[in-house]
């Protein structure tokens, strides 16, 4: 009898671990400023993942999806600060990685300028303009549609379209993203977001710190109240030290199904 119960529990836990957390987006009363400042999100509910090392909150209006990521774990912060944060957006609300967002574009946007002799053919003034453009690309937001093998680097602080910002606040690394719902206008093979009422959002954590994060909660998460109520540092366990003794287990990417909010 005991083996049967164990098998049953194993199957149930296995199935549950594959389920994505569902998150309800909050209607944004006015367009959010994308600068990494958590202030605008102080009343928004965050969902916590990875034992508090990552928390997500989502808002939307009729044009954009706004996403805030809080990273509390110091090691994860260092790795993301160094490598940038990678998101996936699935218009169908599932877990497709076809549409990938990387911020900052960093070295992904670097070019071998000297190749082919094109650089040497530029005037000094053109070289200066090119260098400035390259620098802007490094701090831009890279969006990549794998279906169409198409990618774009956008200025991170653009007034319209894709935008992103990052900042440290009270020991938390904050990333903010603005993702247009009409992604098909940007990528010919992408579908519009929210036509099914929900959008799948994935945050890449795998490969970032396989040896650092101990217990992995995978796609499971729990809703908590707004961070402002928990005092300095975010509370709610986000700054807890790693548990599980640096066991070296694989860290899963975090996926959520976001139900978009309607206009109030």
């Amino acid at each position, binding site marked *: 009898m005991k083996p049967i119960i164990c098998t049953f529990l194993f199957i149930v836990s296995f199935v549950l671990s594959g389920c994505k957390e569902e998150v309800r987006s909050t209607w944004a009363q006015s367009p959010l400023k994308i600068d990494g400042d958590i202030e605008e999100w102080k009343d928004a509910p965050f969902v916590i993942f990875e034992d508090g090392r990552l928390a997500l909150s989502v808002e939307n209006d009729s044009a954009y999806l706004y996403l805030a990521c809080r990273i509390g774990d110091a090691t994860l912060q260092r790795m993301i600060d160094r490598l940038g944060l990678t998101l996936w957006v699935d218009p169908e609300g599932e877990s497709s990685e076809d549409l990938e967002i990387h911020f900052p574009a960093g070295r*992904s946007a670097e070019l071998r300028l000297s190749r082919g002799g094109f650089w040497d053919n530029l005037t000094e003034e053109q070289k200066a303009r090119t260098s400035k453009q390259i620098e802007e690309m490094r701090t831009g937001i890279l969006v990549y549609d794998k279906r169409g093998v198409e990618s774009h680097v956008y*200025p991170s602080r653009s007034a319209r379209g894709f935008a992103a910002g990052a900042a440290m606040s009270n020991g938390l690394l904050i990333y903010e993203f603005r993702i247009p719902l009409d992604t098909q206008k940007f990528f010919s093979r992408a579908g519009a977001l929210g036509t099914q009422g929900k959008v799948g959002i994935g945050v890449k954590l795998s490969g970032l710190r396989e040896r650092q994060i101990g217990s992995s909660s995978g796609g499971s998460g729990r809703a908590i109240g707004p961070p402002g109520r928990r005092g300095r540092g975010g509370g709610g366990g986000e700054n807890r030290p790693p548990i599980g003794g640096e066991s070296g287990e694989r860290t899963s990417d975090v996926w959520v199904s976001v139900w978009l909010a309607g206009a109030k």
Partner: protein
Amino acid sequence: MFGSVFGLPVRNRLSFRDAIAWIVGCMSILGLGAGYSPTMSYPQAKPETAGGLRSSSLESFDKLWQERTISFGQGSDRTGFPSFSGSSVGDRSERGAFPLILHATFMDSVLVEAGSQEYSRLASMTEGELKSYRESFLSAHDISRYIYIWIELQTPLSEEYLKLDRWTIFLEDEQKHQFDPIRVVEHPRERGVARRQPTSEDETGNLLSERLQERFLVAKDVEFYFPKYHIQGEPVVGSEMRRLKLVVVQSSNPNVRAEGTWDLSNIRKH
């Protein structure tokens, strides 16, 4: 074990640095650490939607560059790239021990135009500036008269290996006709210039690879200009030609040899 290899004295036991250097070379030629790198250029896109600072598509400059680039040389009898082939040949003791890594790009008019467009957008050129830039480039490289090949030479060993007088480099067509370069322009690079871009999919491995390359590789860019026409007036690269070979042979020892082949039908397809 070896008295000398490639005309340079060789120690009987490899040092740790040498061992790492060879590993880095092999990683580089096999494309390890390259992984995903978004290929980007500027499409003619609406500014508020697709365009952005830089964009990519299948027709982009990076993609065209990749299609026209063959990589071959050190420690490699095969490569991981789809559009080229390469090999190192020599006697058994030297096979796979070719000291150079070569990345050779066939600079045809399609690639030159894509590059001009790419750099015009990067430099925010006006139409007039682009026209002038294009004319200046075509004049400087004279691709109407020459086959222009851009080659990145790398080695994890001594910079001595980058000296062109050590090597005989020529093109060979399908009928085994060989063509020597008419003009060669060298662009020295300093140690530590990594060729490949990091990836978003293999951060840790790529960072390691990139750092090893930065530490150990020395490199040089060279423009090679080969005749575009036979003496009889026939084009060297005719419309029926499927493959064109680039051969690199050590001048003092023909057994030390590497070659790479462009699949021209693959290039013309696009």
